């Protein structure tokens, strides 16, 4: 379970995350949607202990993220951030191997090797494993970073816009992967998405943010509503049922 209680973050005079409280149950896929600047990444950064909140508490699986030793937390929680600049030159395999660091502390075992190979294969990077990251396309690089997070093999996984730069095939593959991790391995997956239809299709819960607050949360059927979405995105959005799914049209 991830419990966020009255979390506030301000930069100067602008309140970026405004007293947010929310509880995400263990197991399942939660999508966070909302316009640019809504505070999604900021909230995720505080859950991932990259950023300290001005007030409020956050616990992940019962561990307070500000008080738990960072290396303990790294075995339970993996985070993909929106911006992944690297100062060093690494191959895909090198990068993905770092995902094992919290468990092996640099002494890689056969077990770690297996995790690395699995993650590389899962993200369709087998043919690219020995390429340097700067020799990849934007989408391939994005998949390499997702592979690193998957390789960390934690109960809780936060992904900030994992579908950035991805084509439809790979976007759907990653969302399936996220869904399977939640279904089969009972992992708690939290994903920030801009594609409402991906959120509609693959999530158990959708959380909608705007202006640093949570404006709505619930099942896809509750959130994928024309009025609500139009108000959140300040754009006219229609919703059409297709089969068992709700599809937003804009």
């Amino acid at each position, binding site marked *: 379970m991830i419990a966020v209680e009255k979390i506030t973050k301000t930069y100067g005079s602008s309140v970026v995350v405004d007293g947010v409280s929310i509880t995400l149950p263990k197991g399942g896929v939660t999508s966070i949607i909302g316009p640019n600047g809504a505070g999604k990444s900021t909230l995720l950064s505080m859950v991932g202990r990259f950023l300290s909140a001005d007030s409020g508490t956050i616990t992940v699986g019962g561990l307070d993220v500000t008080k738990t030793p960072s290396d303990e937390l790294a075995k339970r929680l993996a985070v993909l951030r929106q911006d992944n600049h690297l100062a060093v030159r690494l191959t895909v395999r090198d990068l993905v191997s770092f995902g094992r660091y919290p468990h092996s502390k640099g002494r890689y075992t056969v077990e770690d090797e297996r995790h690395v190979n699995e993650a590389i294969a899962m993200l369709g990077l087998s043919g690219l494993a*020995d390429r340097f990251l700067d020799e990849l396309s934007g989408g391939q690089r994005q998949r390499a970073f997702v592979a690193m997070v998957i390789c960390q093999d934690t109960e809780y996984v936060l992904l900030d816009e994992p579908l950035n730069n991805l084509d439809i095939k790979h976007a759907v593959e990653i969302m399936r992967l996220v869904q399977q991790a939640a279904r089969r391995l009972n992992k708690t997956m939290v994903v920030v998405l801009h594609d409402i239809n991906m959120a509609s299709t693959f999530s158990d819960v959708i959380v909608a943010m705007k202006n640093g607050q949570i404006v709505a949360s619930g099942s896809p059927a509750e959130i994928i509503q024309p009025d609500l979405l139009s108000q959140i995105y300040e754009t006219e959005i229609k919703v059409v049922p297709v089969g068992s799914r709700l599809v937003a049209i804009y």
Partner: protein
Amino acid sequence: MLPEVRRKRVRAIVALLSVLTVIAMVAFMTLGAKGSWSFILSFRGAKLAALVLVAFSIAVSTVLFQTIMENRIVTPSIMGFDALYVLLQTVLVFAIGAGRLSAMDPFLLFLIEAGMLMLFSNLLYRWILAGAARSPHLLMLVGIVFGILFRSLSSFLQRILDPSEFLILQDRMFASFNAVDTSLLGIAGVVVAIVTVIILRMLPVFDVVALGRNHATALGVDHNRTIMFTLALISVLIAVSTALVGPVTFFGLLVANLAYLILPTSRHAVVLPVATLIAVVTLVGGQVILERVFAFDTALSIIIEFVGGLVFILLVVRGAAR
């Protein structure tokens, strides 16, 4: 590049550098020797040991500094670390007097100086580097300003110093590669050995820190604490090299960037030894060629600084700061 190809290349580089190192060392010990062998061996042996310690200290401190700063242009000496060491020495001579300073236990003195350097690097990081690290150009500017400040302060104090005291100070500070202060050899050796053991244990941590603050945090490394601790190690190494041969500005930059250039990996387990070997070959080999072959005396530091300075300009122009 395939892992197997990369591994072979690393092995070839290490083998080649090791051979060059051995050749340089043997040449250093034997070339142009006249008179009693036992005297020559012990005299040159001490000098050789000092050069190796200096090479190690400069190479390792530079690579580690660049890792924690995520920047391949700044080095501890460009940030004014060794200028500060000289300032500390000057202040000590000024406050205590050169005579009493020379009478002090050199080990104690070294510890005091290294300790003060650690304190400085810690404060510098807290106040400035943590914020400036985001802008490499600001970082360089801060370093250059600090360097000028420390050097001007030193030369101001030196000017108002008693001439005889100044001579003693000059002896301590303007040691060059062929006038190594071997009296500190024992301490330097012990300190370097301890630092080496610590660094060996931390190699995987450095690899993670090189990924940057956010990735390191995500992987469970306490970034701030690791950086503070690494800065302390770097300060000790700078103290060792400055105590032995005096300040050297661009040598670290030169060997670190050569290592990055020829290596197909950025793992510290490989980069640190290779940068050290390059430093040893350059220092010892350069000394042999200049001193024994061409019979120049103080030229090595000038040549190294000149080439290192060129590399620095090249890196700045090429924009490797980002």
